[in-house]
C-alpha cells in the first residue's frame, strides 16, 4: 500500500510549533514525503535530533526518534548506526547545533563515512534562543549578539563536508522544493555519510534584523540569490550555490568494520598476548 507523509508525521500533533513562515515545516514534510516515496518502514528509521528549533522536528514523527543534547545528534546517531547498520539513520541539525557546538562531531562523522544522513536546517542564526550569531552567520549580518555586524567569517557547510570526506554533499533552499526533495532522496539512499545543506528562512529573527521582514521576502531573496554555478556561490555575500557537489561510492564505516570483526576473530589470541606483554 502506498504510504504518504502522514505515515511518518503524526497528523494530530499539528500545527507545528515553529513560527509563521519558518521553513522547518517545509523540510520536515519533504523528508516525510521522501520516506513515503521510498516506502520505508517506520520501524527501520531512526531520526536523531539535537537542540534548537529544528531539534523539535522529532516531536512530530512516528518513526523511532532520539532527541539528545545540544550538538550531539551525530555521535548519538553514530552509536545507533554502528549497533544496527540496517537502520536508516538521519541526524536533523541546525547550523548552531550541527555546525557550531557540534562542528567537531560533524567533521569526524564525515571523515569516518558513517552511513548517516545529516539534514542541516541552515538559517544562519540560533532561532530558538532569540537569534544569536552562529557558525554559519554571513559576515556583517546583524544578529542579537552581533548588533554591529558579525566580524566572523562563516563556515560553508558544503565545503566543510567535502573537505571532511562525506560521500554525498548537496545544497538546496526551502524555496527550491523540488530540488530539495531530490537531494534528500539521494542523500537517504546513499550508503555513507550524506549531507544536505538546506538554506532556510528565519523571518522572526534573522530576517527581521537583516531587512527581510517576512518569510515571503526571505524566500524571494533565496530565489534571487541562488546560482547553479558553483564558482559564483559565496555564502559570505549571501550568494547560494545550489546543486549536488559530491556523490561518490566508497565503503562506509560499518562495512569496513566487518573486516575488523573477521580479523579479530582470527587473530584474537596473538593480539591479546601482544597487548598483555607490554
Amino acid at each position: 500500500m502506498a504510504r504518504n507523509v502522514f505515515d511518518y508525521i503524526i497528523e494530530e500533533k499539528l500545527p507545528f510549533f515553529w513560527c509563521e513562515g519558518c521553513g522547518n515545516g517545509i523540510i520536515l514534510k519533504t523528508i516525510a514525503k521522501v520516506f513515503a516515496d521510498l516506502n520505508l518502514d517506520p520501524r527501520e528509521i531512526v531520526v536523531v535530533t539535537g537542540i534548537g528549533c529544528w531539534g523539535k522536528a522529532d516531536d512530530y514523527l512516528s518513526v523511532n526518534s532520539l532527541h539528545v543534547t545540544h550538538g550531539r545528534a551525530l555521535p548519538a546517531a553514530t552509536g545507533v548506526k554502528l549497533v544496527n547498520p540496517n537502520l536508516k539513520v538521519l541526524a536533523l541539525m541546525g547550523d548552531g547545533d550541527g555546525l557550531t557546538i557540534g562542528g567537531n562531531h560533524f567533521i569526524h562523522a564525515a571523515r569516518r563515512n558513517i552511513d548517516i544522513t545529516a539534514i542541516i536546517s541552515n538559517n544562519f542564526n540560533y532561532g530558538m534562543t532569540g537569534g544569536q550569531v552562529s557558525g554559519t552567520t554571513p559576515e556583517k549580518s546583524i544578529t542579537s549578539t552581533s548588533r554591529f555586524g558579525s566580524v566572523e567569517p562563516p563556515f560553508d557547510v558544503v565545503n566543510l563536508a567535502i573537505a571532511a570526506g562525506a560521500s554525498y554533499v548537496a545544497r538546496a533552499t526551502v524555496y527550491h522544493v523540488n530540488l530539495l526533495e531530490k537531494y534528500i532522496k539521494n542523500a537517504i539512499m546513499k550508503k555513507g555519510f550524506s549531507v544536505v545543506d538546506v538554506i532556510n528562512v528565519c523571518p522572526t529573527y534573522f530576517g527581521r534584523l537583516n531587512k527581510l521582514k517576512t518569510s515571503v521576502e526571505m524566500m524571494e531573496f533565496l530565489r534571487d540569490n541562488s546560482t547553479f554555478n558553483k564558482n559564483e556561490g559565496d555564502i559570505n555575500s549571501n550568494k547560494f550555490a545550489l546543486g549536488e557537489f559530491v556523490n561518490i561510492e566508497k565503503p562506509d564505516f560499518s562495512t569496513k568494520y566487518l573486516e575488523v570483526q573477521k580479523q579479530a576473530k582470527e587473530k584474537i589470541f596473538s593480539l591479546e598476548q601482544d597487548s598483555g606483554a607490554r
Partner: protein
Amino acid sequence: MSKRFKVKINEQRCKKCGICVAFCPKKVLRIDINTFPIVDKEEECIGCNLCYLRCPDIAIFVEEKGEGVV
C-alpha cells in the same frame, strides 16, 4: 484548461504566512490583511502542487477532481 483542481486550506494549521499566495505561478490565491489564503481563481490552477510543497505547515492541498489528493 477546464476547472480540474480543487484547492483546500486547513485553517487549523495555516499560520497565514502567505508563501502559497506569493509563489503560485497562476495567482490562484489571494490573501488580505490577516486572513487565511482565499482561493480566488481555482479554474486557473494547473495542479503544479508548489503551494503544497512550499507550505511550512502542511495546511494546503490540491486535489484533482474525482481523484483525491495529488
